[in-house]
């Protein structure tokens, strides 16, 4: 059984200093604390700067004795993150997990991974190859993906709704979808398109 008392505490703790850390975790629905949505900001001085990245979090029953399952919901171009599935290659999310770690420390590690790719232990072989053989192109692609997928726009909710409704999606569905991804219109669009 997930230790929900601890998860509750973690969420409060984590969201208290969002302004400083740029890290946030919220439940995906009111129904359960086992599915969470994390947010990290792209580190300054990296091709991820200026991006806001959503991370899909599932807590296994054994949490905190087993690591949280995390994957990027926002598309990202990085040697240790699958450009297809968002799967993350990070030791503390696998065998180096410890129950003294938290969702926040895990997300901080993910954020640190964005600053310090490890192409020798890749999750995405194509990205890793590019990183090692053609660094300028890697930087360009990573920056482009940040622009395209991780830029939070300054549009208000109603403007986002209008934009998506104009694309042909029903109003109510647009609103609920936007809400489920915390107002990220790129993710909402992706969700709406995938049905």
């Amino acid at each position: 059984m997930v230790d929900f008392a601890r998860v509750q505490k973690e969420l409060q703790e984590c969201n208290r200093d969002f302004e400083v850390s740029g890290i946030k975790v919220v439940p995906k629905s009111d129904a359960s604390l086992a599915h969470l949505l994390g947010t990290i900001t792209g580190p300054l001085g990296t091709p991820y700067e200026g991006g806001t990245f959503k991370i899909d979090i599932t807590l296994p029953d054994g949490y905190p004795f087993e690591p949280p399952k995390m994957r990027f919901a926002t598309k990202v171009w990085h040697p240790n993150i699958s450009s297809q599935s968002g799967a993350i290659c990070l030791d503390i999310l696998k065998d180096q997990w410890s129950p003294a770690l938290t969702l926040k420390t895990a997300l901080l590690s993910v954020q640190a991974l964005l600053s310090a790719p490890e192409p020798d232990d890749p999750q995405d072989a194509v990205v890793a190859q590019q990183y090692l053989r053609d660094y300028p192109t890697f930087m360009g692609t990573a920056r482009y993906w940040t622009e395209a997928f991780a830029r939070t726009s300054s549009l208000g909710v109603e403007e986002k709704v209008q934009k998506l409704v104009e694309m042909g999606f029903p109003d109510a569905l647009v609103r609920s979808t936007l809400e489920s991804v915390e107002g990220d219109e790129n993710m909402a669009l992706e969700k709406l398109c995938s049905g």
Partner: protein
Amino acid sequence: MSSSVNESTHWCYRCRQPVRPPTLDLICPSCDNDFLQELSEALGNMQSHSRDRLAQSFYTGMPMLGLSEIYKQRSPIFLNPHPAIEAMPSITITRRHVKSGLQCPVCQEDFERDTEAKQMPCNHLYHFDCIFPWLVQHNSCPVCRLQLRPESNGSKIMRALISFFWPFGGSSDQNTQYNLDSDD
């Protein structure tokens, strides 16, 4: 032999009973969690006869007990508790601990005055219930990752725990559902 016992292949840490996962997915059939360990591994290299009987006492007597309850209720018959657990001192939480805001790193609750905590060799403190499930499968302090002595690894601790309740000597009413020798 009860066939339901023979079919169990894994120990569920949530239900605290032997279970048989339906697929290779390793999910407990009664609670759906995946916090399972192979029964044979959990039982270590005990002799097969003992293992069968042990599984029976697991099955009939143990399901509802928490680990610390099992620990506390362990039979006085058993004379050789494992050093790894025995050597880990219990300390009583003092006012000083409470004042310093000391928390159990696993559940992240403040320690309460006059309660007991387990002290790892590195001095890190945990509730017994919080550190035990970790030590069953790992060999290190969650905070500083200090390795415990190599001989006190997870499976050996598990073996020691099992030794505590076999031969099963807990309250007899829990043990009467199944006569251990009836089918032999």
